[in-house]
C-alpha cells in the first residue's frame, strides 16, 4: 500500500515540477518585454533597463526560475503588472467565485449522471435506457457556452428568473450570490453529466457480465442486491477516472463560462491577463490550476487504492 502511495506521490511531484518549468519556459519565449509593456511606449531605454533590473529580469534563467518557483512555494506570486497589487490578492478575490462554481458544477454533474447511468445499465436495451442514452448522446454534443447562451435566453431574457450575468459578491448575501451561479453551474454541469452517465452505464454493463456476478446470483441474491453489493464498487473504478478528468475540464470550462456570464472568477482573470500581457498573473493562475489538476488526479489515484484491494498489495 505505502509503496503504491509513495509512487503516485512521487509522480505527482515530478509532474508538478515539470509543469512549472513548462509554464516558466513558455512565458519566457513570449514576444514582448514586460518592463516595456508596463512603462508604455514613451519610456526611455534607461528607464526600461532600470525596471528590468528591479524586476529581476536580467538575472540568469535558472536563477529566475528558482526565484519564481521558491516564491510559489511560499504563496508569493509577485505583483501584477497591470493592477500593481500582489497576485495572491487577485487570486484570493477571484477564487471565491471560481471554486464554488466548479464544485457546484461537479456536484450537480455527479448527482445527475450516476443515477442515470445506473438506471440505464439496469434496463440495458429497454426503452428507458434508450431514451436516457439518447439524451446523453445529445448532451455530449452540446458546447457548454452555447448551452449557456440558450439558458440566458430562456431564464434571464424571457422568464427573468435569474440575472443574465454578473456577480453581486458574497457580501451581498449567500442567496443572491448563489442565484447568479446557478445558470453557469448548470451550463458547465450538463454536458459533463452526459459524459459521466455514459461512462457509468458502460462500466456497469461491463461489470455485470463478469463471472463473479454470476457467482453472487448463484448465492441467491436478487438481481438488485447483486447490483448494489457487487457491481457498483467494481464499476466505480472507471467512473473515478472520468471524475478526475472532468475536474480539469470544468476548470478550463470556467474560463469560457465566466466570460459568458461576466463572472469575476479566475478564468476571466487569466483571460484578461493574457490579452493584457500580464504575464505574472497568467503564470500564477495557470500554475494554480495545474496544481489543482495534479492534486485531484493524486486524489483519484488514492481512491483507487481504497476501492481496489489489488492495488494495495501490488507494487
Amino acid at each position: 500500500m505505502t509503496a503504491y502511495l509513495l509512487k503516485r506521490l512521487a509522480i505527482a511531484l515530478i509532474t508538478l515540477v515539470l509543469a512549472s518549468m513548462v509554464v516558466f519556459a513558455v512565458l519566457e519565449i513570449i514576444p514582448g518585454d514586460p518592463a516595456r509593456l508596463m512603462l508604455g511606449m514613451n519610456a526611455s531605454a534607461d528607464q526600461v533597463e532600470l525596471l528590468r533590473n528591479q524586476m529581476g529580469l536580467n538575472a540568469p534563467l535558472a536563477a529566475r526560475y528558482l526565484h519564481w518557483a521558491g516564491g510559489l512555494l511560499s504563496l508569493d506570486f509577485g505583483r501584477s503588472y497591470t493592477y500593481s497589487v500582489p497576485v495572491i490578492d487577485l487570486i484570493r478575490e477571484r477564487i471565491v467565485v471560481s471554486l464554488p462554481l466548479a464544485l457546484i458544477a461537479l456536484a450537480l454533474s455527479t448527482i445527475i449522471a450516476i443515477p442515470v447511468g445506473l438506471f440505464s445499465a439496469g434496463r440495458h436495451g429497454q426503452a428507458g435506457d434508450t431514451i436516457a442514452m439518447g439524451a446523453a448522446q445529445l448532451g455530449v454534443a452540446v458546447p457548454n457556452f452555447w448551452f449557456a447562451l440558450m439558458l440566458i435566453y430562456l431564464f434571464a431574457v424571457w422568464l427573468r428568473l435569474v440575472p443574465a450575468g454578473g456577480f453581486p459578491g458574497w457580501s451581498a448575501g449567500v442567496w443572491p450570490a448563489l442565484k447568479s451561479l446557478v445558470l453557469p453551474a448548470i451550463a458547465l454541469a450538463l454536458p459533463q453529466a452526459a459524459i459521466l452517465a455514459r461512462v457509468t452505464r458502460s462500466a456497469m454493463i461491463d461489470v455485470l457480465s463478469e463471472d463473479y456476478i454470476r457467482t453472487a446470483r448463484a448465492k441467491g441474491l436478487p438481481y438488485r442486491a447483486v447490483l448494489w453489493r457487487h457491481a457498483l464498487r467494481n464499476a466505480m473504478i472507471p467512473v473515478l477516472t472520468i471524475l478526475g478528468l472532468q475536474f480539469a475540464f470544468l476548470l478550463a470550462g470556467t474560463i469560457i463560462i465566466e466570460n459568458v456570464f461576466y463572472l469575476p472568477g479566475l478564468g476571466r482573470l487569466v483571460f484578461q491577463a493574457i490579452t493584457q500581457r500580464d504575464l505574472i498573473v497568467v503564470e500564477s493562475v495557470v500554475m494554480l490550476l495545474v496544481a489543482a489538476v495534479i492534486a485531484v488526479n493524486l486524489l483519484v489515484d488514492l481512491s483507487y487504492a481504497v476501492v481496489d484491494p489489488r492495488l494495495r498489495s501490488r507494487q
Partner: protein
Amino acid sequence: MSLLEIEKLSLTIGDTPILRDVELSVAPGEVTGLVGESGSGKSITALTVMRLLPWAARASGRVAFDGIDILAASEDQMCALRGDDIGMVFQEPMTALNPVKTIGEQVAEGIRWHTRASRADAEDRARKMLDRVGLPPAQVPLSRYPHELSGGQRQRVVIAIACALKPKLLIADEPTTALDVVLQAQILDLLRDLVAENRMGLLLISHDLAVVTEMAERITILRHGEVMEAGDTARTLSEQLHPYTRQLAQASMHVPARATTHEVGQDNPQLQVAKPLLQGARPLLQVESVTRDYPGRRKSLLKRAAPTRAVDDVSFSIDPGQSVALVGRSGCGKSTLARMVLALDGPTSGTIRFRGEVITGKSEAELKPARRDMQVVFQDPYGSFDPRQKVEKLVAEPLHVLEKKPTDAERREMVAKALHDVGLGPRDMDKYPHEFSGGQRQRLSIARAIITRPKLVVADEPVSALDVSIRAQILDLFAELNQTLGVAYLFITHDLTVARAITDQVMIMHAGKIVERGRTSEVLDHPQSEAAKSLVAAAPDLHRAIARRLQEQG
C-alpha cells in the same frame, strides 16, 4: 425419489436451438455425470436448473427440484433456492470471485442472506466452512482478498460459498478444468467427501470421461443438445453400446501408432543422456545448468522481495528425432524453460546449445539460422493466430528467417505443401483463422511450425484445449510428422495421457528442477520421485476408472 428431475427439456436462444428433449435425474447422495464436448449444451443445462439463463433463452419441458417446478417458479422462489438448496461451482476460479471483497465477506454473504444470521454468526460459519474445504485460518484468514490466493485455493472458496448452507444439490460445471491434475484430484476428493457427508446430490459436468467415470455412479452423455446415452456409468462405458459413447471412450484412450525407432536406451534409461555421445551422434539440443530468476516484487521504493527462481539448475539434452515430454504441475517452471529453449527469454545463468551452437545471449540476427530449425506450437488454438491476417500470411510467418526471401509463387507453394502435410487443402490459404474450428486451427498451428522443415518443435500443451475426439486426431498428426519429417519434439504438458501417447522419454519437473527422467512407460508405470508419484496417482485414467467401478459392483 429423485432430487432433480429433468424431463423433455428443450431450449432455444433466439432462433438457435440449444437443447432438445434432455432427460436427466439426480438422487440425494448420488453423483450424476453429464459429459459432452464443447457446444453440447451441458453448461446451459446447468444454468437452466439455476434459472440463470441469458435473457433471450426460452425453455420448455419440465425441471423439478424437490417437488418444485423450476421453470414455473417465481424469481423470489428461485432466489430462496439458489445458494440455499442448490449450490453451484463454476469452471474459472480466477474470475469467479469479486476482486474487491474479502473471501470472508463473500462466503458469509449467502449465509447471512438466507438465514438472517448476525454478522458474527455468519462469519463464524464461514470460518468453519473454509476450514472444511481445506483452507485453515493460519493459512487463509477471512480477511484475505481473492487475488492473494492461488487458483486451487480460489476454487475451494467457490466450493465453500456453494456448500455453506449444506445444499441438497450441488452443480459443478467443469470444476477442475482450469486446474492441474494434482489440484484436480484434491478438489474431486473434496467434492466426493461433501457428497458423502451431507447426502448431497451432485451434478458433475465435465468434458473428461475419465474424471466423470471416477466420480459418478450414473452418466448422461450429451451431444449437440441431445442425450445420446444415459445409465449406470460402469455398464455404459464397459459395454459401449451407443456408437458415440464408443467414439468418445476410444478417443479418450487413444494412443497413436508409432514405430519406436528412437528408443535407444532400452537397456538402461539412465544412460540415455550420455549414449548419443558414445555413438558419436551430436545431441540436437543441450541445456546446461540453466537457471532463471525473476526479480522479486517491489515492497517499497528501495526494498525488493527476494527473487523467485523459476528454473533452477536444469540440464538435459534431446537427440535428433527424439520425442520428449516435459511434465509438471502448473507453476513448476516448464513454460519458462520452454521459452528459454526457444530463445524468447534468456537464462540468468547457464547455456543452451542447439545443433552444437550456443544460442543464449545472441542477437536476433545471429539467431536466425537456429530459428529456422526450431519452431513452436501453442496451447490456445484461438489466441495463437492474428485475427487480422489470412492463413497464407500466418502460416508463412516463419519464412521470415530464411536467408533468401522466397518469391510470392514459391511462398504459396510452400504454404500449400505445409497445409497438405497437416491435412488441409490449398484453398484454406485465403481464409481467415476464425473460419476454422479449434482442431483445424491447431493443424494450422502445426503447419506454421513445420513450414521451415525444422529439426525441433516445442509444443506447449498443444492438445489440452481440444475436445477428446479432436485431440486424438491431432496426436496422430504429431506422431505421423515425427515419422515422416524426423522432427524432434519437446512436449510440455501436465497431462500424462498425452505424454504416454506420443513421447519416448519423459522429464518430470518440480519447483524449477528436473527431478526424474527416463523412458516414458518406465516413469509412468514405476515413478521414483515424490513429484512423479503424485502426478501419476492424480492423473485420471479411463481404463483404471472403469475397471475399479466394475470391481466395486462385483
